[in-house]
């Protein structure tokens, strides 16, 4: 099984590179919408290299040091558990019978680590941000869980590979078309997960200057930065597996994750920002009601 470890490493590095590239493309598109030239698409790589070699001399306690590791671990955990290419023995990663439940755990894990580290850093802004972040998480988790559990009940499986297998056989077998309301609820929850613009109050650059990582610098920040990129790619792959029928080769995986990325980018660039309570109220009303339509349909069937 040694080759599995090698491929896990390659998938992590590839996921990081893809995530950084997507971040760069997002910055470029935002710049073009502003009517600017914008940075190169490789700007995030350059930022990461610079951060790796900045000196650090800050000590804030144990949790402060562990939080970037938690963040990175949460990202790598999600990416390595979801099958990227369905049917491939290598690119199915470490997918197994009950991986959906472990992935749901890993998705919260990174956020909790972040919150603990931010609270330990002692800066008022970074203590304020987790309260917003966790409140918003409580908001989007509800429609997301309705959507995921609805799919699990409908297909009678808690394995992501099983969900992908159930969607094979043409575009109209995708959950996006089989269970459109669950998909809409899930995709709205996805906007909240990515802190895309109507739900961006966690980082809120104009209000609480940097948000949770206010006290983090240099190598810590580079770990957080790469953790966030890997986590982002892991979630794109998860949503591709849940709603878009998975992928049977790498090109298909690339096209589908890029389509999901474009949804985020174009939504984020046209909306202003909700306050925390508005975001939570939004999540607990519209996507929940939309998701419940299909949820009830599954039970009646």
């Amino acid at each position, binding site marked *: 099984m040694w080759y599995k470890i090698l491929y896990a490493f390659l998938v992590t590095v590839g996921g990081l590179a893809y995530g950084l590239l997507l971040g760069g493309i997002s*910055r470029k598109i935002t*710049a073009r919408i*502003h*009517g*600017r*030239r*914008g*940075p190169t698409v490789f*700007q995030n790589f*350059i*930022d990461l*290299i*610079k951060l790796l*070699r*900045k*000196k*650090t*001399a*800050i*000590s*804030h*306690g144990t949790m402060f040091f562990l939080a970037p590791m938690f963040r990175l671990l949460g990202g790598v955990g999600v990416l390595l558990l979801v099958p990227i290419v369905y049917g491939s023995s290598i690119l199915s990663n470490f997918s197994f019978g009950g991986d959906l439940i472990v992935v749901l755990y890993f998705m919260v894990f990174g956020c909790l680590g972040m919150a603990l580290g931010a609270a330990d850093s*002692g800066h008022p802004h970074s203590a304020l941000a987790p309260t917003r972040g966790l409140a918003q998480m409580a908001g989007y988790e509800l429609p997301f869980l309705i959507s995921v559990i609805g799919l699990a009940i409908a297909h009678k499986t808690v394995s992501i590979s099983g969900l992908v297998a159930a969607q094979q056989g043409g575009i109209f077998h995708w959950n996006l078309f089989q269970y459109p309301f669950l998909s809409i609820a899930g995709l709205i929850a996805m906007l909240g997960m990515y802190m895309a613009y109507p739900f961006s109050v966690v980082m809120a*650059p104009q209000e609480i*200057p*940097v948000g949770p*990582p*206010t*006290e*983090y*610098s*240099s190598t810590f*920040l580079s770990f957080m930065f790469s953790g966030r990129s890997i986590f982002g790619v892991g979630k794109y792959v998860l949503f591709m597996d849940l709603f878009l029928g998975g992928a049977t080769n790498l090109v298909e995986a690339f096209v589908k994750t890029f389509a999901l990325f474009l949804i985020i980018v174009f939504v984020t660039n046209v909306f202003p920002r909700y306050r925390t309570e508005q975001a939570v109220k939004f999540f607990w009303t519209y996507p929940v009601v939309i998701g419940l339509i299909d949820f009830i349909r599954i039970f009646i069937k």
Partner: protein
Amino acid sequence: MKEKDYFLDDRPKKLSYSEVWEKFFNWARAQSLWVIAYGTGCGSIEIPPMVTSRFDAERFGVSTVGTPRQADVLIISGYLAVKTLKRVIRVYEQMQSPKYVVGLGACTVNGGMYYDSYNTVNLVDLYIPIDVYVAGCMPRPEAILAGFAQLMKKIKEGRADGWKQYIDNLDKYRKNQEKIIKNWKIPNYNW
């Protein structure tokens, strides 16, 4: 918890890297300059046009951050009052090395039109090391971008070493700072 747990009180240390790697990292540092959003004087009004759509500093990798911990560049924007100098020193020492300082406007060179004021610092270089001066009163955003281009060139050539000078000559800089700031209550531990 004791207050002591939150800081290191040893002096800042210089790091030594191998030459070859340092060239590569200097290239990356020059392409990714994060400016702390902190304006000390009237010149800070020229920074928003620089980073927004018209002049778009982001195409050179220059962007703004809201915390000194993540910043690479501190802009002394215009005249520097003694009261502001205290804050500038704290911000500068909280920034993580390597860090660079850009002096904006005539005031940072010789006090400019406030040269005989009772509370304006005339030569900022005596108190914190400045890497690049941008002359003018006020310099336009184009001039600031030209200053950044000069800073990038210096970083790539490895000559932007103001932060090393500050570590080497810390006692000299401290003496100068204490001479002008009468009521010295700045903690010595914010590296």
